[in-house]
């Protein structure tokens, strides 16, 4: 899912840097204003986690490989805005030190995996979770659904970004300059594997970790630590 340099044009890459730049600023501001000093170790922990989880390639239908990203999990644990920074750091280190993705395409990769995936996945999670708390089963199920939605939306974006290249950039005789495949190829190639195995892997990682932490460390979730324990009865009484 990391677009390497050369698969999309410098022009497309530049547009994604421009789109992503203000979101970085907003993410930094959220971190400065809303992220307490006590949550900085969590920021570092989640950045290392997302770096590592992306190393676990699994075989996907169609003979390709893919991996979970952890973007929605990060958003659930530290908030969707700080998640942008967390994913950006993991993607930047992957591109700079390991040649995974690219430096020119980093803006696009951050937009797909670091902005849209955590943001939209988080919104889906919130919508499904409703007012449930991390200790409840629906909370973890919502996390899994959010993860599934997030990775598939990212896969859709990658497919579109790659698939429009032959239309946008080609030689006078029509020979493509960058990604040679059109949307007819890129859409099924990205979506079929992710709607099935890739999405399932993301759902299992997101839902699994949230279920585990919800059971054993519910205080880790945003808004949980500060509140005094609310019993079911109290909560039902409030509603």
């Amino acid at each position, binding site marked *: *899912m*990391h*677009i*390497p*340099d*050369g*698969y999309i044009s*410098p022009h497309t890459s530049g547009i994604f840097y421009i789109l992503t730049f203000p979101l970085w*600023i907003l993410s*930094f*501001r959220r*971190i*400065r204003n809303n992220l307490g000093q006590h949550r*900085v*170790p969590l*920021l*570092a*922990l989640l*950045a*290392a*986690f997302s*770096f*590592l*989880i992306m*190393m*676990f*390639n*699994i*075989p*996907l239908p169609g*003979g*390709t*490989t*893919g991996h979970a990203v952890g973007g929605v999990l990060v958003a659930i644990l530290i908030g969707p805005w700080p998640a942008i*920074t*967390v994913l950006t*750091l993991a993607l*930047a*280190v*992957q*591109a*700079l*030190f*390991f*040649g*995974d993705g*690219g*430096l020119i395409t980093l803006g696009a990769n951050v937009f797909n995996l670091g902005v849209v995936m955590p943001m939209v996945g988080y919104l889906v999670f919130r919508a499904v979770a409703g007012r449930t708390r991390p200790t409840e089963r629906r909370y973890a199920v919502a996390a899994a659904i959010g993860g599934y939605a997030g990775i598939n939306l990212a896969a859709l974006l*990658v497919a579109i970004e790659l698939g429009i290249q032959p239309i946008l950039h080609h*030689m006078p005789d029509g*020979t*493509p*300059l*960058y*990604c*040679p*495949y059109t949307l007819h190829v*890129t859409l099924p*190639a*990205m979506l079929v594997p992710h709607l099935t195995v890739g999405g399932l892997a993301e759902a299992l990682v997101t839902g699994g970790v949230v279920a585990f932490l919800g059971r054993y460390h519910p205080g880790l979730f945003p808004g949980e630590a500060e509140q005094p324990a609310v019993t079911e009865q109290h909560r039902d009484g409030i509603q």
Partner: protein
Amino acid sequence: MKYRKAWIALAVLAVLSPLGILAIGSAWGEWDMETIQDLTGHAPEGMQEARDNRPDAPFQEYEVPGLSGNWLQTGAGTILSALIGAGITAASAIVLHRIVRHGTIPR
């Protein structure tokens, strides 16, 4: 140390990371130039140019220079890459937080 157990879990993930390179095949749309030439019959010019101008990463493909040849060395290289990468990522998060906290961000 805060989140000690979680850091241990991440270290276990790093040690298990060679499992992630067992998957046969490559990610769709992340091929090298030779593969794309095989697949499509030609090397797109703009792609070739971007590839030629790309600086080599120190640990390209999560391999540590000098650690390759047999599966044992490749596996060790992957684990080392995982530890180095996770370490740099975590450290950069702390550094970035300091900069964001004490520096100025445009409003």
